[in-house]
């Protein structure tokens, strides 16, 4: 990276923000590491970046981390994908038929406003601590962004464009491919970005409550064991996954729907 930076004029100014960000992250970790030169280090209370890195490597090498992640990924995929299918379908119907929308809107808003995480203990008691309980929690948490965004997307379809396609002899297929899908899809993808975060909360809630494996359980267990280096490694891992998922979707939005940039 650094040897590339030298010859190019304007590299520094073009990537100024990225460089400043990287610099700040580097300073942060360096300061974290350095502070224990002056402050007594208590491994039961805090960890150091070097120790966290070691723990991360050892967890990766032993395969524990990947195992826990794989365990957690199953209910996440089930819950998230079913929330996407059901939520988008429901949202489109609610947007397309005004009366369905009128009827269901207050109920959906009611559910969305109430902290549904609060139902987690009930779901766990009812469905058990396995995949099904977690799937339902993730489904409940991540469905609402899909519903509301699909509905908003349908409302945003330009009626004029529909009429234009119709008057110019476009088929029903043209209508969907050229007008409806391009206008609804960006909303759904934006909803997915929000839903990913909520779905991850669902994974953690389910696993903190009652589980015997999974990444959330690993964090809680390492905390109980005062293995802070491993705990930080797992937290870091979740942070990376969360950022990768949300920023990945954001990037996909920018590439796939360039006309919506800036909204």
């Amino acid at each position, binding site marked *: 990276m650094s040897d590339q930076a030298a010859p190019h004029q304007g590299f520094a100014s073009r990537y100024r923000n990225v460089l400043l960000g990287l*610099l700040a992250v580097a300073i942060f970790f360096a300061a974290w590491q350095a502070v224990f030169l002056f402050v007594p280090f208590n491994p039961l*209370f805090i960890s150091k970046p070097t120790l966290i890195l070691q723990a991360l490597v050892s967890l990766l090498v032993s395969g524990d981390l990947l195992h826990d992640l794989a365990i957690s990924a199953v209910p996440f995929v089930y819950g998230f994908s079913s929330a996407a299918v059901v939520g988008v379908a429901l949202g489109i119907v609610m947007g397309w038929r005004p009366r369905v929308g009128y009827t269901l809107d*207050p109920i959906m808003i*009611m559910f969305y406003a109430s902290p549904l995480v*609060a139902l987690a*203990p009930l779901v766990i008691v009812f469905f058990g601590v396995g995949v099904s309980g977690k799937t339902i929690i993730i489904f409940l948490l991540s469905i609402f962004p899909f519903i509301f965004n699909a509905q908003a997307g349908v409302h945003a379809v330009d009626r004029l464009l529909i009429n234009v396609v119709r008057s110019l002899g476009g088929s029903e297929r043209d209508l969907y491919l050229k007008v409806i899908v391009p206008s609804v899809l960006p909303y759904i993808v934006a909803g997915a970005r929000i839903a990913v975060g909520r779905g991850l*909360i669902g994974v953690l809630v389910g696993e903190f409550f009652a589980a015997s494996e999974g990444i959330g359980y690993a964090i809680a267990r390492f905390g109980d064991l005062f293995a802070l280096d491993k705990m930080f490694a797992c*937290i870091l891992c979740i942070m990376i996954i969360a950022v990768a*998922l949300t920023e990945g979707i954001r990037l996909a939005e920018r590439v796939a729907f360039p006309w919506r940039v800036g909204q």
Partner: protein
Amino acid sequence: MTETRAIETDIGGPLESAAPADGLWHRLESTIFGAGGIVVLLAVWEALPRIVTLSAGTKLFFTTPSQIAETLWQMFATGSIWVPLSVSASGFALGLGLAVVAGLPLGVLIGRSPTLNAMLDPFITAFNATPRLVFLPLIMLWFGLGLWAKVIVVFIGALFPILINTYEGVRNADKTLINVVRSFGANEWDVARLVVVPNAMPYIVAGLRLAIGRAVLGVVVAEFFGSESGLGVMMVQAAGQYHVDKVFAGLIVFAGLSLIMTAAVQVLENRLTLWRPQRAGGE
């Protein structure tokens, strides 16, 4: 305004064209259908155990709206709700208050300084994308099971919506106004006080509204996993003893708390932005 609204709601039905004659029906339609939907939902829920005989196991997990209302009424009548509610509310209020105190100035600062923004951006992105729940075991380890762990969880949750919205609002401040104030000899503090913050107010209020939802969520999760008392603790215990009605009663109280707070923010917004239409009229 009313016209665009009518067009907007009409988009949905390509086959339905609302008769323009009965305006009253058209205006009340959404309210009637909305209220009807809730009534039907409650009625079906209430009637379900009377129509279908539930197995003994399912009955343990089943409750009816009337039972929930009864429990809720009992909790208020006997006063048993006040102690857990006040514990939860103080955690909520302290965390949200701290988030406002920290988030507002920081948001203005990164909105005004591109360098600071570029440096803090990775941290804000990372912490905002990460479910705060992940830090809960760590926070419990550091702060124990008392009030402060809860305050910190609420704080982390509520900070980012406020911070990010303040930043957005500050970025959208009118450059001309800033230049005008500058030409009259204002320093950075005056610019923030006179132009930037008042202009960012709608954004800040929207952020505050988001923050309230997250703060309530924060209280719930903090109390579920690491607290000695509070409404969330009561709900977990109730779930463990199969008092499903009590769990729902708690849920309703939490939802009520967030609705009341949101309404309060709305009132605040109306008060704070009273000057807006006046200015528009004056110019």
